[in-house]
C-alpha cells in the first residue's frame, strides 16, 4: 500500500470526480461527502508521502511499471512533497468551509460543481507530483479547463472574465508546450531528470535557450506575473466565493512551483544562474510587479479585487526570491508558496463568510462587521497581519528570508520593494479594518453597554476559518523546523 501513495493521490480524486458526477443525478446530497472522502484520502496520502520523503529523500513511482524515460514517472522529493501537503490540505479545508456557500450560490448545480472542484484539485496534485514534463502539461490543462468552468459559474461579469482568462491561459499553456517540444527535439526526452542529465552538453544551444524563454514566459502568463497579470483580478473577483478561495491560494502557487521545478530540476541552477545572465533583470521585473501590484491594489474599492491585486504583488515576491540566485532567496520563495497559500486561503474564506451573511464584498458592505461578525473579522486581522508580515505569523518569516536573500545578493531594489509592499499592505488592510470598525458612526459616549447583535456565519464555515487563522501562527512558530528539515534539502547544494 505505502508504495502507491503517489498514484493514490491522483487516482482517487480522479475516479471520485466521475462518481460525484453520477451521484449528482441520483441524489445531490451524496456529492459533498464523496468529495470530502476523496480529498481526505489525498490529504492523508500526501502527508504520509512527505514522511516517506523525509526517510528516503526521493520517492519514484513508475506508472504502469514502465521505466522512465519511456514511461511516465511520478517523482516526489522534498520540494513537491511540501507543496503536495499544502495543496491537499488547503483544498480539503476550503471544501469543508465553503459547503454552505455552494448551497447558497448554486443549489441546482451541486453535482457539476463538486465534479469540477475535485477534477481541478486532481489536476493541481498531478502537476506537482509528476516528474514528466509533458505529463505536467496534460495535468495543467485539466486544472485550467476545470478552473475556467468553475470561475464561469459566478454571476455578472464572470463569463467575460473567464473568456479573458481562457485566452490568456491557453496562450500560456501553449507556450509551455512549445518550449517542451523544443526540448524534446534536442534531448529526445520528456522526463525531467533525464532532460537535465542530457542538457549540460547543450548549454550553448540556441534551441535550449529558445525552449527556456518560451517555457518561462508561458509559466509567467499562467501565474499572472506582472505585466502578464491582466486576466487575474477580474477572474478571481467575479468567481463564486467557494471558487475564489480555492483557486486564489492554489493556482498561482502551483505554477510558481512549476517555475522553480523548471529552474532547479529541468534546466538546472548552473544553466539559469551561470550560463544565462538574466537573473538580475528578472528580479527587477519582480520589483516592478510588487510595486505595481501594491499601487493597483490601493485603487480598489472592493475587498475581493483588492486581495486579487495583492496576489499579483505576492507573485512578484516569489519570482524575485527564486531568481535572486542564493539560498536565502530560494528558501523564501519556497516557504512563501506554503505561507501565501495559507494566508490567501484565510482572507478569501473571510470574504466567503462575509458574502454568505451580507451578500456583498464592496467596501460599503463591510460597515459594522466587527460587531456583527467578530470571529470572522478576528481571523481577517490575523490573515492581514500575516500578509503585512508581522511576527509570529508565517508571512513574516518568508519575508525575512526574501529580504535576507536580497541583502546577500546586494539587490537593494528588491528589499525596498518588499518593505514598500508591507507598508502598502498596512494601509490596504487598515482601510478595510477602519470601515468595518468605525462605520456606521454612532455616539458611544455615556452608553455603558451596546446591545450589538452578533450574526456570525455558521460553525461549519467558522471552524475551518479559525483553524486556518491559528495555522498561520503555528506555521510561523515552526518555520525553523520546516526550513531545517524540508526546504534545506529541497534546494540543490550548488546554490549557496
Amino acid at each position: 500500500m505505502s508504495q502507491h501513495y503517489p498514484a493514490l493521490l491522483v487516482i482517487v480524486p480522479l475516479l471520485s470526480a466521475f462518481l460525484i458526477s453520477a451521484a449528482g443525478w441520483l441524489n445531490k446530497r451524496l456529492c459533498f461527502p464523496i468529495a470530502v472522502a476523496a480529498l481526505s484520502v489525498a490529504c492523508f496520502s500526501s502527508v504520509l508521502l512527505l514522511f516517506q520523503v523525509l526517510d528516503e529523500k526521493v520517492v519514484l513511482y513508475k506508472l504502469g511499471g514502465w521505466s522512465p524515460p519511456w514511461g511516465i514517472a511520478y517523482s516526489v522529493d522534498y520540494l513537491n512533497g511540501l507543496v503536495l501537503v499544502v495543496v491537499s490540505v488547503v483544498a480539503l479545508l476550503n471544501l469543508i468551509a465553503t459547503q454552505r456557500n455552494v448551497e447558497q450560490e448554486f443549489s441546482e448545480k451541486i453535482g457539476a460543481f463538486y465534479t469540477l472542484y475535485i477534477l481541478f484539485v486532481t489536476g493541481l496534485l498531478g502537476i506537482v507530483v509528476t516528474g514528466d514534463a509533458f505529463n505536467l502539461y496534460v495535468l495543467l490543462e485539466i486544472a485550467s479547463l476545470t478552473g475556467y468552468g468553475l470561475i464561469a459559474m459566478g454571476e455578472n461579469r464572470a463569463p467575460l472574465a473567464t473568456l479573458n482568462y481562457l485566452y490568456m491561459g491557453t496562450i500560456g499553456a501553449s507556450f509551455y508546450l512549445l518550449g517542451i517540444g523544443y526540448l524534446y527535439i534536442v534531448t529526445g526526452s520528456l522526463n525531467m531528470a533525464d532532460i537535465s542529465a542530457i542538457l549540460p552538453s547543450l548549454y550553448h544551444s540556441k534551441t535550449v535557450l529558445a525552449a527556456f524563454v518560451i517555457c518561462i514566459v508561458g509559466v509567467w502568463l499562467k501565474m499572472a506575473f506582472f505585466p502578464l497579470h491582466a486576466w487575474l483580478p477580474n477572474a478571481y473577483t467575479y468567481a463564486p466565493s467557494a471558487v475564489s478561495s480555492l483557486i486564489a491560494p492554489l493556482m498561482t502557487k502551483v505554477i510558481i512551483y512549476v517555475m522553480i521545478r523548471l529552474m532547479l530540476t529541468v534546466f538546472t541552477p548552473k544553466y539559469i544562474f551561470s550560463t544565462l545572465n538574466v537573473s538580475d533583470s528578472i528580479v527587477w521585473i519582480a520589483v516592478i510587479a510588487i510595486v505595481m501590484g501594491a499601487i493597483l491594489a490601493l485603487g480598489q474599492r472592493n475587498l475581493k479585487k483588492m486581495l486579487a491585486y495583492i496576489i499579483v504583488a505576492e507573485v512578484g515576491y516569489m519570482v524575485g526570491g527564486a531568481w535572486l540566485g542564493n539560498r536565502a532567496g530560494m528558501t523564501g520563495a519556497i516557504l512563501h508558496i506554503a505561507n501565501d497559500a495559507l494566508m490567501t486561503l484565510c482572507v478569501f474564506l473571510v470574504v466567503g463568510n462575509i458574502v454568505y451573511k451580507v451578500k456583498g464584498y464592496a467596501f460599503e458592505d463591510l460597515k459594522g462587521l466587527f460587531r456583527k461578525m467578530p470571529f470572522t473579522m478576528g481571523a481577517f486581522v490575523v490573515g492581514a497581519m500575516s500578509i503585512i508580515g508581522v511576527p509570529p505569523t508565517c508571512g513574516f518569516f518568508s519575508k525575512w528570508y526574501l529580504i535576507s536573500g536580497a541583502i546577500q545578493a546586494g539587490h537593494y531594489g528588491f528589499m525596498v520593494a518588499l518593505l514598500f509592499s508591507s507598508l502598502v499592505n498596512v494601509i490596504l488592510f487598515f482601510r478595510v479594518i477602519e470601515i468595518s470598525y468605525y462605520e456606521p458612526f454612532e455616539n458611544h459616549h455615556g452608553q455603558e453597554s451596546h446591545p450589538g447583535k452578533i450574526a456570525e456565519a455558521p460553525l461549519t464555515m467558522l471552524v475551518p476559518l479559525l483553524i486556518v487563522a491559528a495555522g498561520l501562527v503555528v506555521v510561523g512558530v515552526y518555520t525553523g523546523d520546516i526550513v531545517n528539515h524540508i526546504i534545506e534539502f529541497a534546494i540543490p547544494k550548488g546554490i549557496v
Partner: protein
Amino acid sequence: METITSIKPLLAVLVSLCVVPLLMSSRSPNVREAWTFVAASAKFLIVASMLPVVFNGFEIVYTVAEVIPGVAIKFRVDALGMLFALVSSSLWIVTSVYSIGYMRGLKEHSQTRYFCFFALALSATIGVAFSANLLTLYLFYEMLSFATYPLVTHHQDEEARSSGRKYLLYIVGTSIGFVLPAMLISYNLSGTLEFSRQGFLAGTGSRGLTGVLLVLIVFGFAKAAIMPFHSWLPAAMVAPTPVSALLHAVAVVKVGVFSVVRVLTGVFGINLLISFDFGPFIIFVASATILVGSFIALSQDNLKRLLAFSTIAQLSYIVLGVGLLSPQGMTGGMVHIAMHAFGKITLFFCAGAIFVATGKRNISEMIGIGRRMPVTMTAFFIASLSITGLPPCGGFISKWYLVLGSLQAHQMPVLFVLLVSSLLNAAYFMPIVYKAFFCTPQEAMFEKGVKEAPAFCVVPLVITALISMVLLFYPQPFFGLADMMVKSITGG
C-alpha cells in the same frame, strides 16, 4: 554571568494572554474585573519572584522555538529588563483599579474589549522587557502596536479614526520601514541577533554602515517619540485616560525607549559607540527633543496634550543618559524609566480624575479646582515636582545622576539643556498648581465644597504620588538594578 533556565519569563508574558478568553466570557462586569486583578497580581508576583535571582547575579533564560537559524524566540531576564518589567507590572495593578473608577464613572461602551486589549498590551510589554534577542523584541513591539490600536481609538468616532491612522502610520511605518531592514542587515553582518554585553555588531561593519543602522534604530522605534517622529503621542491622547496613563506614560513609550536603550547597549555596545564617536549624535537628537518638547508643552491648554509633550521631552532624558556613554549618565537614564513612570502616571490619573469629576479638559477651565479636589491636586503637585526633578521626589535622583554623568562625560552643553529643561518644566506645571489653589474668589470657576472623583480614581493616584516621594528616600530595587546593568555592560 551564570544563567538559569526557567519557564517563569514565558509565564509572565502568557498570564495576561490567557486571561483574555476569561474576560470575554465573563457574564458580569464584577467578575470580569476580578479576572483582571487576578492576572495583574499573578503577573506582578511572577515578575517579583525573579527579582532575588537577578539580584544574586543570575540571568533567567527560556527558549520557545528556533525560528530562523541562530535566532530563536527566546526570553532572558536581566537587570534592565527586570527594572522595566517591575515598573509596568506593578503599575498595571494600580491602573486596573483606576480603570474601574474611570470607565464606570463615565459609563463607557465596550468595556470588555477595553480590558481584553489592555491585558494583551501588558503581555507584549513584558515580552519586550524579557526579550533575549532583537527578533523577539520586534515581535512583541509589533504586538504592542496593534494591541493598543483599539485602545487608542476606543471612542470609535471621526477623531479617534484620524488619530488611529496617525498612530499606526508613525509607529508601524517606522518599525517596518526602519527597524526591520536594520535588523536584517545586522543579522546578515553578524549572523546573530542575540543581545550581548559588548554588543553583537562590534567589529562587523564600517563606521558609515554602523551609522546608518544607528539612525534607523534610534528613529525606527518611534514609540520612544524622538523628534521628528513624536506627533503620534499627542494624537493618541484621544484615548480614555487610563490608556494614556499606563500606555502613553509607562508601557508603550517606555517600550520605545527601552528598545532604543537595549539596542544601543546590546546590539551596538558601548565600546563601539565610543570608538565610532556616535555619542554626540544621540545627545544632540535627545537634547533637541527635550528642549523643543518642553517649549511646545508651555503653549498647551489641553491638560492631556500638555502631559503628552512633557512625556516626549522626559523620554529623551533616558536616551540622553545612555547617549552620554558614561556610567553615571547611563544609571541616571535607566533609573529615570522608573521615576518618570510613577510621576507621569500620577499626573495622567489626576487629569482623568478631573475629567470624571467635572468634565473639564482644559487648563484655563481649572482655576480654583484645588479647593474642590484638594487630594487630587496635591498629588498633582507632588508628581509635578518629581517630573521637574526637585526633592522630595524620586525624579531628583535621576536628574542628579544625569548631571553627574554629563560632568563625567565632559559634556557641558548637556548641563545647560538639563537646566533649561527643569526651568521649563517648572514653568508649565507650577502655574496650573498655583491657579488651582491660590485664586481670588471671583476667579474661581467652581462652587465651594469638596467633591472628589470616585474612590476608585482617587486611591490609585494617591498611591502613585506617595511612591514617587518614597522613591527619593528608598530608590530600591530600581536603583540597584540600573546600577547592576551599567556595571555589567561597562565591565566595571
